[in-house]
Protein backbone atom coordinates (compact mmCIF):
# COMPACT_ATOMS: atom_id res chain seq x y z
CA UNK A 1 0.00 0.00 0.00
CA UNK A 2 2.81 2.39 0.93
CA UNK A 3 4.56 1.55 -2.33
CA UNK A 4 1.38 2.08 -4.34
CA UNK A 5 0.93 5.43 -2.67
CA UNK A 6 4.50 6.39 -3.52
CA UNK A 7 3.98 5.49 -7.16
CA UNK A 8 0.76 7.50 -7.23
CA UNK A 9 2.47 10.49 -5.68
CA UNK A 10 5.24 10.31 -8.27
CA UNK A 11 2.71 10.06 -11.08
CA UNK A 12 0.77 13.02 -9.80
CA UNK A 13 3.73 15.26 -9.23
CA UNK A 14 4.94 17.26 -12.12
CA UNK A 15 8.13 18.47 -10.61
CA UNK A 16 8.50 22.19 -10.93
CA UNK A 17 11.43 23.77 -9.09
CA UNK A 18 9.25 26.41 -7.44
CA UNK A 19 8.87 26.63 -3.67
CA UNK A 20 5.36 27.16 -2.29
CA UNK A 21 6.34 30.35 -0.48
CA UNK A 22 3.96 31.17 2.34
CA UNK A 23 4.27 33.19 5.50
CA UNK A 24 2.79 30.27 7.45
CA UNK A 25 4.47 26.88 7.23
CA UNK A 26 2.32 24.84 4.86
CA UNK A 27 4.18 21.65 5.90
CA UNK A 28 6.27 19.83 3.29
CA UNK A 29 4.49 16.54 3.92
CA UNK A 30 1.11 18.25 3.78
CA UNK A 31 1.89 19.81 0.37
CA UNK A 32 3.06 16.50 -1.08
CA UNK A 33 0.06 14.57 0.20
CA UNK A 34 -2.29 17.38 -0.91
CA UNK A 35 -1.34 16.61 -4.51
CA UNK A 36 -2.34 12.98 -3.97
CA UNK A 37 -5.54 13.83 -2.09
CA UNK A 38 -6.60 16.41 -4.70
CA UNK A 39 -5.95 13.81 -7.41
CA UNK A 40 -8.05 11.21 -5.60
CA UNK A 41 -10.88 13.70 -5.06
CA UNK A 42 -10.89 14.66 -8.75
CA UNK A 43 -10.80 10.97 -9.72
CA UNK A 44 -13.81 10.29 -7.53
CA UNK A 45 -15.67 13.25 -9.08
CA UNK A 46 -14.96 11.89 -12.57
CA UNK A 47 -15.97 8.38 -11.49
CA UNK A 48 -19.25 9.58 -9.99
CA UNK A 49 -20.07 11.58 -13.11
CA UNK A 50 -19.29 8.60 -15.35
CA UNK A 51 -21.27 6.25 -13.09
CA UNK A 52 -24.20 8.69 -13.21
CA UNK A 53 -24.10 8.67 -17.02
CA UNK A 54 -23.84 4.89 -17.28
CA UNK A 55 -26.57 4.36 -14.69
CA UNK A 56 -28.76 6.96 -16.42
CA UNK A 57 -28.14 5.19 -19.76
CA UNK A 58 -29.15 1.80 -18.30
CA UNK A 59 -32.34 3.31 -16.89
CA UNK A 60 -33.16 4.76 -20.30
CA UNK A 61 -32.39 1.42 -21.96
CA UNK A 62 -35.00 -0.26 -19.80
CA UNK A 63 -37.54 2.41 -20.58
CA UNK A 64 -37.40 4.13 -17.19
CA UNK A 65 -37.78 7.81 -17.90
CA UNK A 66 -35.64 10.30 -16.06
CA UNK A 67 -37.75 12.92 -14.30
CA UNK A 68 -38.04 16.05 -16.47
CA UNK A 69 -35.68 18.88 -15.54
CA UNK A 70 -37.20 21.52 -13.27
CA UNK A 71 -39.12 24.27 -15.01
CA UNK A 72 -40.46 22.00 -17.78
CA UNK A 73 -43.94 20.61 -17.59
Amino acid sequence: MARDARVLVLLLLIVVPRPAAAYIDPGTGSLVIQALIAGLVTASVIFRRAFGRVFGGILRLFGRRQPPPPGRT
Partner: protein
Amino acid sequence: MSERREPSSYRDPAGFLFFRDGVLLRHVAPAGAADYDALLSSGLYEALALEGLLVPHEEVEPPEGHEDAHRVLRPRVIPFVSYPYEWTFGERRDAGLLTLSVQRRALERGLSLKDASAYNVQFLDGRPVFIDTLSFERYPEGRPWVAYRQFCEHFLAPLALEATGDHRLGRLFSSFPDGVPLDLASRLLPFRTKLRPGLALHLHLHSWGQGRYSSGPARPSPTVSKGRLLDLVADLEACLAGLRLPRRTSTWSDYYAGTNYSPEALESKKEFVRAALGEVRPSVVWDLGANTGLFSRLASEAGAFTVAMDGDPLASEGHYRDVVGRGERRVLPLVVDLSSPSPSLGWDGRERRSLFERGPADLALALALVHHLAIGANVPLGSIASSWARMAEWLVVEFVPKSDSQVQRMLRSREDVFPGYTADGFEAAFGREFEVCRRAGVAGSERSLYLLRRRSPA
Protein backbone atom coordinates in the same frame (compact mmCIF):
# COMPACT_ATOMS: atom_id res chain seq x y z
CA MET B 1 -3.21 61.01 20.41
CA SER B 2 -2.76 57.42 21.49
CA GLU B 3 -1.73 54.43 19.42
CA ARG B 4 -1.27 50.77 20.20
CA ARG B 5 -0.77 47.76 18.01
CA GLU B 6 -3.22 44.87 18.16
CA PRO B 7 -1.18 42.16 19.95
CA SER B 8 -2.47 39.32 17.72
CA SER B 9 -1.45 41.08 14.48
CA TYR B 10 2.22 40.25 13.99
CA ARG B 11 2.54 37.17 11.78
CA ASP B 12 1.91 38.49 8.30
CA PRO B 13 4.46 40.92 6.78
CA ALA B 14 1.66 42.23 4.49
CA GLY B 15 0.34 44.49 7.26
CA PHE B 16 -0.97 44.84 10.78
CA LEU B 17 -3.86 46.18 12.84
CA PHE B 18 -3.53 49.06 15.26
CA PHE B 19 -5.76 51.27 17.37
CA ARG B 20 -5.46 55.02 16.93
CA ASP B 21 -7.40 57.03 19.50
CA GLY B 22 -9.51 53.94 20.03
CA VAL B 23 -10.30 53.48 16.31
CA LEU B 24 -9.28 50.17 14.74
CA LEU B 25 -7.18 50.63 11.57
CA ARG B 26 -5.27 48.29 9.27
CA HIS B 27 -1.85 49.24 7.89
CA VAL B 28 -1.24 47.69 4.46
CA ALA B 29 2.55 47.44 4.16
CA PRO B 30 4.40 47.70 0.82
CA ALA B 31 4.97 43.92 1.04
CA GLY B 32 1.21 43.41 0.80
CA ALA B 33 0.53 46.12 -1.78
CA ALA B 34 0.34 44.00 -4.94
CA ASP B 35 -1.95 41.38 -3.36
CA TYR B 36 -4.23 44.02 -1.83
CA ASP B 37 -4.51 45.80 -5.18
CA ALA B 38 -5.30 42.47 -6.87
CA LEU B 39 -8.06 41.84 -4.31
CA LEU B 40 -9.68 45.10 -5.34
CA SER B 41 -8.99 45.08 -9.08
CA SER B 42 -10.24 41.47 -9.47
CA GLY B 43 -13.63 42.51 -8.07
CA LEU B 44 -13.27 39.89 -5.33
CA TYR B 45 -13.39 42.38 -2.47
CA GLU B 46 -16.58 43.95 -3.77
CA ALA B 47 -18.23 40.58 -4.41
CA LEU B 48 -17.34 39.21 -0.96
CA ALA B 49 -18.31 42.40 0.88
CA LEU B 50 -21.63 42.57 -1.00
CA GLU B 51 -22.44 38.99 -0.03
CA GLY B 52 -21.52 39.73 3.59
CA LEU B 53 -18.68 37.19 3.51
CA LEU B 54 -15.85 39.67 4.10
CA VAL B 55 -15.86 42.53 6.59
CA PRO B 56 -16.22 45.82 4.69
CA HIS B 57 -13.70 48.63 5.12
CA GLU B 58 -13.02 52.10 3.89
CA GLU B 59 -9.66 53.52 2.91
CA VAL B 60 -8.58 56.47 5.04
CA GLU B 61 -5.72 58.97 4.97
CA PRO B 62 -2.60 57.43 6.54
CA PRO B 63 -2.23 58.99 9.99
CA GLU B 64 1.04 60.42 11.24
CA GLY B 65 3.68 57.72 11.57
CA HIS B 66 2.11 55.56 8.82
CA GLU B 67 3.33 57.48 5.77
CA ASP B 68 5.10 54.33 4.52
CA ALA B 69 1.79 52.43 4.33
CA HIS B 70 0.51 51.44 0.90
CA ARG B 71 -3.01 52.01 2.28
CA VAL B 72 -4.63 52.45 5.68
CA LEU B 73 -8.05 50.82 6.08
CA ARG B 74 -10.79 51.30 8.61
CA PRO B 75 -12.75 48.03 8.84
CA ARG B 76 -16.25 47.75 10.24
CA VAL B 77 -15.98 47.02 13.96
CA ILE B 78 -16.95 43.61 15.34
CA PRO B 79 -19.06 44.20 18.48
CA PHE B 80 -17.55 41.30 20.44
CA VAL B 81 -14.43 39.38 19.45
CA SER B 82 -14.96 35.67 20.12
CA TYR B 83 -12.43 32.88 19.73
CA PRO B 84 -12.77 29.44 18.14
CA TYR B 85 -12.37 27.70 21.50
CA GLU B 86 -15.52 29.52 22.63
CA TRP B 87 -17.62 28.59 19.60
CA THR B 88 -20.31 25.98 19.48
CA PHE B 89 -20.04 23.09 17.04
CA GLY B 90 -22.38 24.84 14.58
CA GLU B 91 -20.48 28.11 14.80
CA ARG B 92 -17.19 26.32 14.11
CA ARG B 93 -18.72 24.46 11.16
CA ASP B 94 -20.29 27.62 9.71
CA ALA B 95 -16.99 29.46 10.11
CA GLY B 96 -15.22 26.62 8.25
CA LEU B 97 -17.82 26.63 5.47
CA LEU B 98 -17.44 30.40 5.17
CA THR B 99 -13.65 30.02 4.81
CA LEU B 100 -14.18 27.48 2.01
CA SER B 101 -16.72 29.71 0.25
CA VAL B 102 -14.24 32.57 0.37
CA GLN B 103 -11.45 30.33 -0.98
CA ARG B 104 -13.66 29.08 -3.84
CA ARG B 105 -14.61 32.60 -4.88
CA ALA B 106 -10.96 33.70 -4.57
CA LEU B 107 -9.73 30.87 -6.83
CA GLU B 108 -12.39 31.70 -9.41
CA ARG B 109 -10.94 35.23 -9.61
CA GLY B 110 -7.28 34.26 -9.66
CA LEU B 111 -6.53 34.67 -5.96
CA SER B 112 -6.15 32.29 -3.04
CA LEU B 113 -6.22 32.38 0.74
CA LYS B 114 -2.68 32.25 2.09
CA ASP B 115 -3.95 31.25 5.53
CA ALA B 116 -7.11 29.58 6.80
CA SER B 117 -6.92 30.37 10.49
CA ALA B 118 -10.16 30.09 12.44
CA TYR B 119 -9.19 33.41 14.08
CA ASN B 120 -9.80 35.05 10.68
CA VAL B 121 -13.53 34.57 11.24
CA GLN B 122 -15.77 36.53 13.58
CA PHE B 123 -19.53 36.73 14.03
CA LEU B 124 -21.30 39.84 12.82
CA ASP B 125 -25.08 40.32 12.64
CA GLY B 126 -25.64 36.68 13.55
CA ARG B 127 -23.46 35.14 10.85
CA PRO B 128 -19.78 34.40 10.34
CA VAL B 129 -17.70 36.90 8.43
CA PHE B 130 -14.10 36.76 7.21
CA ILE B 131 -12.15 39.59 8.81
CA ASP B 132 -8.61 39.39 7.43
CA THR B 133 -8.50 41.55 4.30
CA LEU B 134 -4.79 40.75 3.86
CA SER B 135 -5.22 36.96 3.75
CA PHE B 136 -5.54 37.02 -0.04
CA GLU B 137 -2.69 36.54 -2.48
CA ARG B 138 -2.43 36.25 -6.23
CA TYR B 139 -2.67 32.59 -7.17
CA PRO B 140 0.05 31.21 -9.44
CA GLU B 141 -1.51 28.43 -11.54
CA GLY B 142 -0.43 25.00 -10.38
CA ARG B 143 0.48 25.87 -6.81
CA PRO B 144 -1.09 23.77 -4.04
CA TRP B 145 -3.21 25.47 -1.36
CA VAL B 146 -0.66 26.53 1.23
CA ALA B 147 -3.33 26.82 3.92
CA TYR B 148 -4.74 23.30 3.45
CA ARG B 149 -3.06 21.90 6.56
CA GLN B 150 -4.07 24.91 8.64
CA PHE B 151 -7.67 24.54 7.50
CA CYS B 152 -7.72 20.89 8.53
CA GLU B 153 -6.13 21.65 11.92
CA HIS B 154 -8.37 24.63 12.70
CA PHE B 155 -11.68 23.31 11.42
CA LEU B 156 -11.90 19.74 10.22
CA ALA B 157 -9.98 18.04 13.07
CA PRO B 158 -11.91 19.63 16.01
CA LEU B 159 -15.25 19.24 14.19
CA ALA B 160 -14.63 15.58 13.38
CA LEU B 161 -13.62 14.91 16.99
CA GLU B 162 -16.81 16.56 18.28
CA ALA B 163 -19.08 14.85 15.77
CA THR B 164 -17.66 11.34 15.89
CA GLY B 165 -15.91 11.25 19.28
CA ASP B 166 -17.46 13.35 22.00
CA HIS B 167 -19.15 16.75 21.86
CA ARG B 168 -16.90 17.98 24.70
CA LEU B 169 -13.78 17.54 22.57
CA GLY B 170 -14.34 21.01 21.08
CA ARG B 171 -12.59 22.24 24.21
CA LEU B 172 -9.39 20.63 22.94
CA PHE B 173 -8.99 23.80 20.87
CA SER B 174 -8.11 25.82 23.98
CA SER B 175 -5.17 23.47 24.66
CA PHE B 176 -4.09 23.75 21.02
CA PRO B 177 -5.02 27.35 20.17
CA ASP B 178 -3.19 27.07 16.86
CA GLY B 179 -5.23 24.11 15.70
CA VAL B 180 -5.50 20.46 16.69
CA PRO B 181 -2.46 18.56 15.31
CA LEU B 182 -3.57 16.08 12.65
CA ASP B 183 -1.64 13.14 14.10
CA LEU B 184 -3.38 13.67 17.45
CA ALA B 185 -6.80 13.95 15.80
CA SER B 186 -6.13 10.85 13.69
CA ARG B 187 -5.17 8.88 16.82
CA LEU B 188 -8.20 10.05 18.83
CA LEU B 189 -10.83 9.56 16.13
CA PRO B 190 -12.83 6.31 16.22
CA PHE B 191 -11.79 3.61 13.72
CA ARG B 192 -15.04 3.98 11.75
CA THR B 193 -13.92 7.43 10.58
CA LYS B 194 -11.35 5.65 8.38
CA LEU B 195 -14.33 4.39 6.37
CA ARG B 196 -15.72 7.87 5.75
CA PRO B 197 -14.04 9.03 2.53
CA GLY B 198 -13.75 12.73 3.52
CA LEU B 199 -12.25 12.07 6.95
CA ALA B 200 -10.11 9.22 5.61
CA LEU B 201 -8.52 11.54 3.03
CA HIS B 202 -8.30 14.91 4.73
CA LEU B 203 -7.43 13.71 8.22
CA HIS B 204 -6.06 10.16 8.26
CA LEU B 205 -4.21 10.09 4.93
CA HIS B 206 -3.21 13.73 5.39
CA SER B 207 -1.74 12.95 8.81
CA TRP B 208 0.07 9.88 7.44
CA GLY B 209 1.48 11.87 4.51
CA GLN B 210 2.63 14.62 6.78
CA GLY B 211 4.68 12.21 8.84
CA ARG B 212 5.89 10.29 5.79
CA TYR B 213 7.07 13.21 3.67
CA SER B 214 8.04 15.89 6.18
CA SER B 215 11.57 14.60 6.71
CA GLY B 216 14.24 13.73 4.21
CA PRO B 217 15.71 15.85 1.42
CA ALA B 218 14.01 19.08 0.38
CA ARG B 219 11.36 18.37 -2.23
CA PRO B 220 10.19 20.63 -4.99
CA SER B 221 6.65 21.81 -4.58
CA PRO B 222 4.11 19.54 -6.29
CA THR B 223 1.73 20.91 -8.87
CA VAL B 224 -2.01 20.96 -8.26
CA SER B 225 -4.14 22.49 -11.00
CA LYS B 226 -6.84 25.05 -10.21
CA GLY B 227 -9.53 22.56 -11.23
CA ARG B 228 -8.22 20.06 -8.69
CA LEU B 229 -8.03 22.73 -6.00
CA LEU B 230 -11.67 23.61 -6.66
CA ASP B 231 -12.56 19.91 -6.36
CA LEU B 232 -10.58 19.77 -3.11
CA VAL B 233 -12.49 22.77 -1.71
CA ALA B 234 -15.84 21.25 -2.79
CA ASP B 235 -14.91 17.96 -1.14
CA LEU B 236 -13.96 19.72 2.11
CA GLU B 237 -17.30 21.56 1.98
CA ALA B 238 -19.19 18.28 1.59
CA CYS B 239 -17.14 16.73 4.39
CA LEU B 240 -17.86 19.61 6.80
CA ALA B 241 -21.53 19.78 5.86
CA GLY B 242 -21.84 16.04 6.54
CA LEU B 243 -20.58 16.34 10.12
CA ARG B 244 -23.31 16.50 12.73
CA LEU B 245 -23.41 16.24 16.48
CA PRO B 246 -25.10 13.02 17.55
CA ARG B 247 -28.59 13.59 18.93
CA ARG B 248 -27.93 13.68 22.63
CA THR B 249 -29.09 15.78 25.53
CA SER B 250 -27.05 17.02 28.46
CA THR B 251 -28.00 18.16 31.93
CA TRP B 252 -28.64 21.67 30.69
CA SER B 253 -29.75 21.39 27.07
CA ASP B 254 -33.23 20.35 28.25
CA TYR B 255 -33.19 22.59 31.30
CA TYR B 256 -36.35 24.60 30.76
CA ALA B 257 -38.32 21.60 29.56
CA GLY B 258 -37.41 19.55 32.62
CA THR B 259 -36.96 21.95 35.55
CA ASN B 260 -39.18 22.70 38.47
CA TYR B 261 -40.01 26.15 37.13
CA SER B 262 -43.72 26.73 37.07
CA PRO B 263 -45.04 28.87 34.22
CA GLU B 264 -45.89 31.45 36.88
CA ALA B 265 -42.29 31.55 38.20
CA LEU B 266 -40.87 31.78 34.70
CA GLU B 267 -43.21 34.63 33.80
CA SER B 268 -42.32 36.49 36.98
CA LYS B 269 -38.61 36.17 36.17
CA LYS B 270 -39.22 37.42 32.64
CA GLU B 271 -41.16 40.42 33.97
CA PHE B 272 -38.34 41.36 36.32
CA VAL B 273 -35.70 41.05 33.58
CA ARG B 274 -37.82 43.03 31.10
CA ALA B 275 -38.31 45.82 33.65
CA ALA B 276 -34.56 45.89 34.46
CA LEU B 277 -33.69 46.08 30.75
CA GLY B 278 -36.22 48.88 30.28
CA GLU B 279 -34.73 50.79 33.19
CA VAL B 280 -31.03 50.38 32.35
CA ARG B 281 -31.35 50.40 28.51
CA PRO B 282 -28.03 48.59 27.99
CA SER B 283 -26.23 48.46 24.65
CA VAL B 284 -24.26 45.33 25.52
CA VAL B 285 -25.54 42.51 27.74
CA TRP B 286 -23.66 39.42 28.88
CA ASP B 287 -26.01 36.59 29.74
CA LEU B 288 -24.00 34.40 32.13
CA GLY B 289 -25.23 30.81 32.23
CA ALA B 290 -27.54 31.60 29.32
CA ASN B 291 -28.55 27.98 28.70
CA THR B 292 -30.62 27.92 25.49
CA GLY B 293 -31.13 31.67 25.53
CA LEU B 294 -34.58 32.33 26.97
CA PHE B 295 -33.43 35.54 28.64
CA SER B 296 -30.86 36.53 26.01
CA ARG B 297 -33.84 36.89 23.70
CA LEU B 298 -35.43 39.42 26.05
CA ALA B 299 -32.20 41.44 26.06
CA SER B 300 -32.04 41.31 22.27
CA GLU B 301 -35.69 42.37 22.00
CA ALA B 302 -34.81 45.34 24.22
CA GLY B 303 -32.23 46.34 21.59
CA ALA B 304 -29.04 45.12 23.30
CA PHE B 305 -26.26 43.14 21.65
CA THR B 306 -26.13 40.05 23.83
CA VAL B 307 -23.27 37.63 24.39
CA ALA B 308 -24.87 34.45 25.73
CA MET B 309 -22.39 32.25 27.58
CA ASP B 310 -22.90 28.77 28.91
CA GLY B 311 -20.48 26.03 29.85
CA ASP B 312 -22.60 23.29 28.29
CA PRO B 313 -21.68 22.83 24.60
CA LEU B 314 -25.04 21.21 23.77
CA ALA B 315 -27.11 23.96 25.40
CA SER B 316 -25.08 26.64 23.57
CA GLU B 317 -25.33 24.71 20.31
CA GLY B 318 -29.12 24.50 20.69
CA HIS B 319 -29.12 28.24 21.31
CA TYR B 320 -27.02 28.88 18.18
CA ARG B 321 -29.38 26.80 16.03
CA ASP B 322 -32.30 28.78 17.42
CA VAL B 323 -30.50 32.08 16.70
CA VAL B 324 -29.79 30.99 13.10
CA GLY B 325 -33.35 29.69 12.64
CA ARG B 326 -34.87 32.98 13.75
CA GLY B 327 -32.41 35.14 11.81
CA GLU B 328 -31.45 36.75 15.11
CA ARG B 329 -28.72 39.37 14.55
CA ARG B 330 -28.03 40.58 18.07
CA VAL B 331 -27.27 37.40 20.04
CA LEU B 332 -23.96 35.55 20.05
CA PRO B 333 -24.08 32.19 21.89
CA LEU B 334 -20.72 30.97 23.19
CA VAL B 335 -19.39 28.02 25.19
CA VAL B 336 -17.74 29.54 28.26
CA ASP B 337 -17.21 27.72 31.54
CA LEU B 338 -18.05 30.47 34.03
CA SER B 339 -16.15 28.76 36.83
CA SER B 340 -13.06 29.22 34.65
CA PRO B 341 -13.71 32.08 32.20
CA SER B 342 -11.54 32.22 29.03
CA PRO B 343 -7.99 33.26 30.01
CA SER B 344 -5.64 35.28 27.83
CA LEU B 345 -3.72 32.95 25.53
CA GLY B 346 -1.06 32.88 22.86
CA TRP B 347 2.21 34.67 22.39
CA ASP B 348 3.23 36.89 25.30
CA GLY B 349 0.01 35.91 27.01
CA ARG B 350 -1.71 38.74 25.11
CA GLU B 351 -2.55 37.37 21.69
CA ARG B 352 -6.08 36.22 22.58
CA ARG B 353 -7.73 38.38 25.19
CA SER B 354 -9.32 37.03 28.33
CA LEU B 355 -13.06 37.33 28.78
CA PHE B 356 -12.58 40.17 31.28
CA GLU B 357 -10.42 42.15 28.84
CA ARG B 358 -13.29 42.02 26.32
CA GLY B 359 -15.68 43.69 28.73
CA PRO B 360 -17.17 45.22 30.64
CA ALA B 361 -20.75 44.87 29.47
CA ASP B 362 -23.37 47.43 30.42
CA LEU B 363 -25.44 44.79 32.12
CA ALA B 364 -24.95 41.14 33.05
CA LEU B 365 -27.70 38.60 33.63
CA ALA B 366 -26.83 35.89 36.16
CA LEU B 367 -30.00 33.88 36.58
CA ALA B 368 -29.93 30.64 38.55
CA LEU B 369 -26.14 30.69 38.49
CA VAL B 370 -24.90 31.77 41.92
CA HIS B 371 -25.57 28.39 43.57
CA HIS B 372 -23.62 26.55 40.86
CA LEU B 373 -20.53 28.63 41.60
CA ALA B 374 -20.99 29.01 45.37
CA ILE B 375 -21.99 25.41 46.12
CA GLY B 376 -21.05 23.50 42.97
CA ALA B 377 -17.56 25.05 42.70
CA ASN B 378 -17.02 26.27 46.31
CA VAL B 379 -16.42 29.89 45.21
CA PRO B 380 -17.02 32.33 48.13
CA LEU B 381 -19.97 34.69 47.56
CA GLY B 382 -17.74 37.77 47.97
CA SER B 383 -15.44 36.49 45.24
CA ILE B 384 -18.37 35.93 42.86
CA ALA B 385 -19.56 39.49 43.54
CA SER B 386 -16.13 41.06 42.88
CA SER B 387 -15.67 38.97 39.72
CA TRP B 388 -19.03 40.01 38.29
CA ALA B 389 -18.39 43.63 39.27
CA ARG B 390 -15.50 43.51 36.77
CA MET B 391 -17.83 42.16 34.08
CA ALA B 392 -20.63 44.74 34.12
CA GLU B 393 -21.88 47.93 35.73
CA TRP B 394 -25.39 46.57 36.19
CA LEU B 395 -26.28 43.10 37.30
CA VAL B 396 -29.53 41.16 37.38
CA VAL B 397 -28.90 38.26 39.70
CA GLU B 398 -31.05 35.49 41.11
CA PHE B 399 -30.42 34.05 44.55
CA VAL B 400 -31.51 30.45 45.00
CA PRO B 401 -31.72 29.53 48.73
CA LYS B 402 -30.69 26.24 50.26
CA SER B 403 -34.32 25.24 50.69
CA ASP B 404 -34.74 25.15 46.89
CA SER B 405 -34.91 21.66 45.41
CA GLN B 406 -32.05 22.39 42.98
CA VAL B 407 -29.69 23.30 45.84
CA GLN B 408 -30.94 20.39 47.91
CA ARG B 409 -30.01 18.09 45.05
CA MET B 410 -26.50 19.58 44.94
CA LEU B 411 -26.05 19.06 48.68
CA ARG B 412 -27.49 15.55 48.73
CA SER B 413 -24.19 13.76 48.35
CA ARG B 414 -21.84 16.15 50.09
CA GLU B 415 -21.25 17.90 53.36
CA ASP B 416 -22.85 21.33 53.71
CA VAL B 417 -19.77 23.51 54.28
CA PHE B 418 -21.60 26.67 53.28
CA PRO B 419 -22.98 28.23 56.47
CA GLY B 420 -22.77 31.70 54.91
CA TYR B 421 -24.94 30.71 51.94
CA THR B 422 -28.09 32.55 53.03
CA ALA B 423 -30.07 35.47 51.65
CA ASP B 424 -28.45 37.73 54.28
CA GLY B 425 -24.98 36.39 53.47
CA PHE B 426 -25.65 36.94 49.77
CA GLU B 427 -26.85 40.53 50.30
CA ALA B 428 -23.87 41.34 52.54
CA ALA B 429 -21.34 39.90 50.04
CA PHE B 430 -22.86 41.56 46.99
CA GLY B 431 -23.55 44.76 48.95
CA ARG B 432 -19.81 45.38 49.21
CA GLU B 433 -19.57 45.68 45.40
CA PHE B 434 -23.06 46.73 44.34
CA GLU B 435 -25.97 48.77 45.59
CA VAL B 436 -29.40 47.18 45.47
CA CYS B 437 -31.70 49.06 43.11
CA ARG B 438 -34.58 46.63 43.16
CA ARG B 439 -35.46 43.31 44.74
CA ALA B 440 -38.38 40.95 44.15
CA GLY B 441 -39.31 37.36 44.94
CA VAL B 442 -39.82 34.88 42.14
CA ALA B 443 -43.51 34.00 42.23
CA GLY B 444 -44.26 30.49 43.47
CA SER B 445 -40.72 29.90 44.79
CA GLU B 446 -38.34 31.01 47.52
CA ARG B 447 -35.91 32.50 45.03
CA SER B 448 -35.14 36.23 44.86
CA LEU B 449 -34.18 38.54 42.03
CA TYR B 450 -32.03 41.65 42.39
CA LEU B 451 -31.17 44.53 40.12
CA LEU B 452 -27.77 45.75 41.30
CA ARG B 453 -25.50 48.62 40.27
CA ARG B 454 -21.77 48.66 40.80
CA ARG B 455 -20.65 51.07 43.54
CA SER B 456 -17.44 52.26 41.89
CA PRO B 457 -16.03 52.18 38.37
CA ALA B 458 -14.23 48.94 37.37
